[in-house]
């Protein structure tokens, strides 16, 4: 066991730090052109799509280098490396793994250059956790598929240019995972209607998406017909590694500690309160566990050992921390804590109150905690399904 990095890895970390020192001014000093310049600079470094093969414009970074890059970026609270979030997170990797050469040429550069926004059309009104049972129908007619059906909870649909869409091409199948086909569809195709849905925090980021006789050319199919489930699985597996998240959560813990230091309860600093201190310790233990879990899983991958579903452990920690840290801050600060941005007494500008209404994105969005527990119980422990 050795927690030190090799010389090359340390050199890479130094390179990232130097770059950040030179190119990342403090938030207050960032002018109007900053974001587009930033995107261009990190693109030139080939840090966008850092894990992707060089021939498609990626950086061919090793797994460890990827982890270092993510960690340093998060430590510096740097903006994202690209704005095509889902494109970078899983659509791009899916296309690299399953796409034709022509598809790679066509889609990858635009994702890397933040030119095209993708959204993910998996969930349906009747099929969320049970994703493999989706019913949106795609019927082959000549050199097109004709799509009819409905998706829901599609994050980013109101402004996305493209959707990665899970459809069913076969209904008479033995296993529901068969007969699923993945299509890449421009959102301005006739027959697509988007209806935004407002969430409890007052945002309308996700939407219902309706498909009525939508024509999709066969060349927009990703992977083989009827084998779309494999594409989906790989996309889900490509959900970003947790290392950058861990760094962000450590940063959030620091903000929480600052809050504790400056809050008074019953005339005494909250930081003197044993129950407060205990909670802070618990948060740190969970985040640190996520960090070292992540490093252990990374090591497994580096050694070429198969990863099972261990990553669900970190997803569950992340879900509970996502709820508990905000709620802790809100509870600690009482009636000031429940004030939203704009309130005279709002704590830290109301950020805790506001983000305490945002957890479902993390907790439900990527598969619910119950489903993560089922995955651990069934796939790792071998327990029977219910």
């Amino acid at each position, binding site marked *: 066991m050795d927690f030190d990095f090799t010389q090359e890895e340390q050199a890479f970390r130094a390179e990232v730090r130097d770059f950040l020192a030179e190119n990342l001014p403090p938030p207050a000093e960032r002018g109007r052109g900053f974001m587009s310049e930033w995107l261009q600079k990190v693109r030139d470094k080939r840090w966008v799509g850092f894990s992707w093969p060089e021939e498609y414009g990626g950086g061919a970074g090793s797994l460890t280098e990827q982890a270092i890059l993510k960690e340093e970026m998060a430590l510096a609270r740097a903006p994202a490396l690209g704005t095509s979030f889902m494109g970078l997170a899983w659509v791009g990797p899916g296309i690299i793994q399953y796409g034709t050469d022509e598809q790679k040429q066509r889609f990858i550069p635009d994702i890397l250059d933040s030119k095209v926004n993708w959204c993910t059309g998996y*969930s349906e009104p*009747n*099929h*969320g*956790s*049970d994703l493999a*049972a989706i019913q949106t129908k795609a019927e082959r007619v000549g050199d097109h598929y004709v799509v009819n059906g409905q998706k*829901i*909870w599609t994050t980013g649909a109101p402004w996305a240019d493209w959707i990665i869409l899970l459809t069913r091409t076969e209904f008479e199948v033995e296993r529901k995972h068969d007969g699923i086909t993945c299509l890449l569809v421009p959102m301005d195709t006739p027959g697509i209607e988007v209806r935004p*849905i*407002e*969430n*409890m925090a*007052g945002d309308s980021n*996700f939407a219902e998406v309706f498909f009525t006789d939508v024509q999709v050319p066969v060349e927009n199919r990703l992977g083989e017909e009827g084998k779309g489930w494999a594409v989906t699985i790989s996309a889900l597996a490509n959900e970003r590694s947790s290392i950058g998240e861990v760094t962000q959560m450590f940063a959030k813990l620091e903000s929480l500690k600052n809050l504790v230091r400056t809050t*008074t*309860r*019953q*005339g005494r600093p909250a930081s003197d*309160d044993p*129950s*407060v201190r205990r909670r802070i310790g618990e948060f740190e233990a969970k985040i640190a566990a996520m960090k070292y879990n992540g490093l252990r899983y990374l090591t497994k991958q580096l050694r070429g050992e198969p990863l099972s579903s261990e990553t669900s452990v970190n997803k569950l920690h992340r879900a509970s921390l996502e*709820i508990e840290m905000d*709620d802790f801050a*809100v*509870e600690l*600060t*009482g*009636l*000031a*804590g*429940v*004030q*939203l*941005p*704009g*309130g*005279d*007494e*709002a704590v830290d500008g*109301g950020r805790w*109150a506001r983000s*305490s*209404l945002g*957890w*479902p*994105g993390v*907790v*439900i*969005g990527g598969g*619910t*905690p*119950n489903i993560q*527990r*089922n995955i651990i119980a069934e796939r790792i422990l071998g327990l029977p399904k*219910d």
Partner: protein
Amino acid sequence: MDFGFSEEQNLLREQVSRFMTDACPLSVVRAQNGGFPDELWRQAADLGWLALIVPEAHGGLGLKWIDLAVVLEESGRGLSPLPILSQALAATAIGRCSGDDVKSEWLPQIATGDVVFGVGLYDDPTWIDPKGVGLEGGETLTGAKPFVSDATRATHLLLATRNRERLGLAIVDAGDVTLKAQPGIDRTKPFASVSLDRVKPLAAFAMSTADLAYLTDCGAVAVTLEAIGAAEATMALTTEYAKTRIQFDNPIGKYQGVKHRLADMFIDIESFKSLAYYAAWAVDDAPEELPRAASLAKAYAADAFARIGIDGVGLHGAIGFTAEYDAQLYLKRSKWVRSAFGDADYHYQRAAALGGL
């Protein structure tokens, strides 16, 4: 021993429940922004709910907090925007702390609903520190009260003041102060900051530290009673959904991950309900027991309802996250309940202290 409600109390419960379903459903609740329809306030007054705990000598019904408990519980079930809690707290405070002249002037108007009270006790956001009362008392009042409940639609405000170590209460005309509504997570529990510039109180009287503690306990009990209804509504909504939502070919309620969480909700609600009923009884019939009873009830309810609020949304999946769906309204209430009149941390520590530690 008879730890059950009387026939009158059960009829009262039915009456409030019918009112909430027919006149004040969640569609009406959602349409409010820090206020309430006058018509509903009138009806509540006509039905006698504002007069319940006001003594008969002052135009009230002379009943007790355990009768009011039924009203608060059913109001909470439907997240009623009517400030019945603040009105009751004002009645209790005036009845306990003021002299006969103040009582004769104000209690009858409280009972008829002709005045609507907003209440501002603590200026400390955690609502537990008597030292956190900052507004200086006197002939005229100048200063600020950052957290005044139900102030935006009130005709009058009951504000705690201090002169060195001596606490007091002042009744001021809401028209004499500058009010600023504050954006809170739970819109059904509106708060405002109030600033006063040489405002002459319409009445002012002393309040002891023990009085303040008693009023805080009444508030904590009231919040907990409302939380019973709200938590039960969350459980009912989620249970119904679990019976009808199909995933993997079964209703999700068939899976233990869902089923056991709902059973846990039931266990918790049953339990803080019993604690809260006992505390509500203690308000009038065993005030010496009130501090401990109120702390145990409020602490248990605050933590349990917070969990229930989250699971109410979470067990629905994504639909629970939508603005249109009602589960989120209860989640938001649970966040307010946590902080109102002392959080669980404070109340558990207080219970331990009262228990001899």
